[in-house]
């Protein structure tokens, strides 16, 4: 069950989307999110939706994978939709009902917005290896080094976290099974009882995480890690023509959405 979490998973591949510079993709996602929040009318939403579908096609990511990733968010999406449906004033669908046409429209738009937001970020993480992603972030944030932001440290922390998520999930599964074998019950009881029942999982998990951190630090030092100074990278990021084209397209999308918004579409 825990293994089914796909958040942040990378699907190796060799499409244009995979080959784009991670910096390009990060900026594109940024532009995409801005565009999404600028979209007002159906045409605007339609345009963003179209862009998403095109990106999915280009990167060979099937809608099934996107939906699988959406599953954990379903509750939030449903809740937002419900709130919008019930708390928007306007013309009732049927005389006397609380549900209004305006509410319905807003609910659909909200759902679309959240879904697209998640789909967009998934496209990024599905097509970009976490290492490339952190590399891209590090380079994009490089100017911040001048104001003494520890950019290298932040990004190496991020990549370590990403590296150990699957390991820790697997470990959590194992510890849970072991405690269940001693009769621990994680499913029944009051909220407090259930919170207490987590202790037998959390304590070993933390103990092991600290042990791992300790061993990892020694292993990193043994491999001559001494901070970001003087480090080189095997994979040099280089902006190619396709990156500039992609960025131009991203800007175009944002511009189009803003223009459409201006016309109320």
């Amino acid at each position, binding site marked *: 069950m825990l293994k089914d979490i796909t958040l942040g998973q990378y699907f190796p591949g060799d499409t244009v989307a995979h080959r784009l510079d991670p910096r390009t993709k990060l900026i594109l996602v940024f532009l995409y999110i801005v565009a999404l929040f600028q979209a007002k009318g159906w045409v605007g939403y339609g345009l963003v939706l179209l862009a998403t579908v095109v990106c999915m096609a280009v990167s060979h990511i099937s809608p099934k994978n996107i939906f699988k990733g959406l599953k954990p968010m379903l509750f939030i999406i449903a809740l937002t939709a419900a709130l919008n449906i019930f708390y928007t004033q306007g013309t009732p669908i049927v005389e006397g009902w609380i549900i209004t046409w305006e509410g319905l429209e807003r609910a659909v738009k909200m759902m679309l917005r959240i879904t697209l937001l998640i789909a967009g970020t998934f496209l990024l993480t599905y097509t970009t290896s976490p290492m490339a992603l952190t590399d891209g972030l590090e380079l994009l944030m490089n100017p911040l080094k001048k104001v003494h932001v520890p950019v290298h440290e932040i990004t190496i922390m991020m990549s370590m976290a990403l590296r150990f998520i699957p390991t820790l999930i697997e470990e959590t599964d*194992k510890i849970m099974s072991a405690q269940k*074998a*001693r009769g621990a*019950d994680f499913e029944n009881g009051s909220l407090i009882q259930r919170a207490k029942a987590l202790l037998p999982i959390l304590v*070993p998990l933390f*103990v092991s995480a600290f042990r791992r951190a300790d061993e990892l630090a020694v292993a990193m030092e043994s491999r001559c890690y001494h901070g970001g100074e003087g480090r080189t990278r095997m994979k040099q990021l280089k902006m190619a023509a396709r990156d500039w084209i992609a960025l131009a397209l991203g800007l175009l999308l944002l511009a189009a959405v803003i223009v459409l918004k201006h016309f109320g579409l």
Partner: protein
Amino acid sequence: MSVITVENLRHTYSAGTPFEKVAIDDISLSIPAGQFVGLLGHTGSGKSTFIQHLNALLQPTSGRVLLDGEDINKDKKTRHDVKWKVGLVFQYPEYQLFEETVFADIAFGPKNMGLKKEEIEERVREAAGFVGVKEELFERSPLELSGGQKRRVAIAGVVAMRPEVLILDEPTAGLDPAGSRKIMNNICRYREQSGATVIIVSHNMDDAARLAERLIVFDHGHVAMDGTPEEVFSRPQELINIGLSVPQSTAIAMALREKGMPLEGSVFTHEQLLKAVAKAKGVALC
């Protein structure tokens, strides 16, 4: 009378996805009460999946698991309560220790059973005695103990539930020869005194050969071999074909036979090899 009966057990991971994998494919077997069983097989042969079915941690995709004639997946309660009757010690069990004291950690299982305080105390002492955890360690934090001691505390945590069936997955993994021997001896003693059925999953052929009454060899989700150590190790080539090793004494016996020395009987322990060679040479052992 068999304590565990497995009927046409099948288990598929991630059914219905592209990652679908059949871990166990149509296994039927029964284990008589009190038997000492060794489960052999390489990683991925399905033996870990199999043992997790015996205490209902995993539910069969199809087939049934019976404990004392009763389906352990009959309802939610049986599925939960079977954990006391079939104690499962995972690989590297020391990683599951979490309580502040050794005593409290061993008491975790009995406490979950809802036993009275006196009963819990009695069981903790008894279990600690079986695995050789001294009482002066009871108030220490489990995290301060040495690797071997932690392992024993973790095993005691399961033994304290007084399971009818005790299953241990690689109980000696990562321990040195002396530490392994101690743990195996403790398990043997527990079995003798409690009469429990014991199932040990092991990579160590020499241990399996020496201790178990019956060996079940898994391969690709099937039972490839099932019999006494004599029977199983009399077909060493089959074990090698599956990708398993044979006990060192069996390997030497195979080489001797191939080179023309006639050895009698099935050879899988040092003593058997010694006797067989001495006999072939016509020498009496002192």
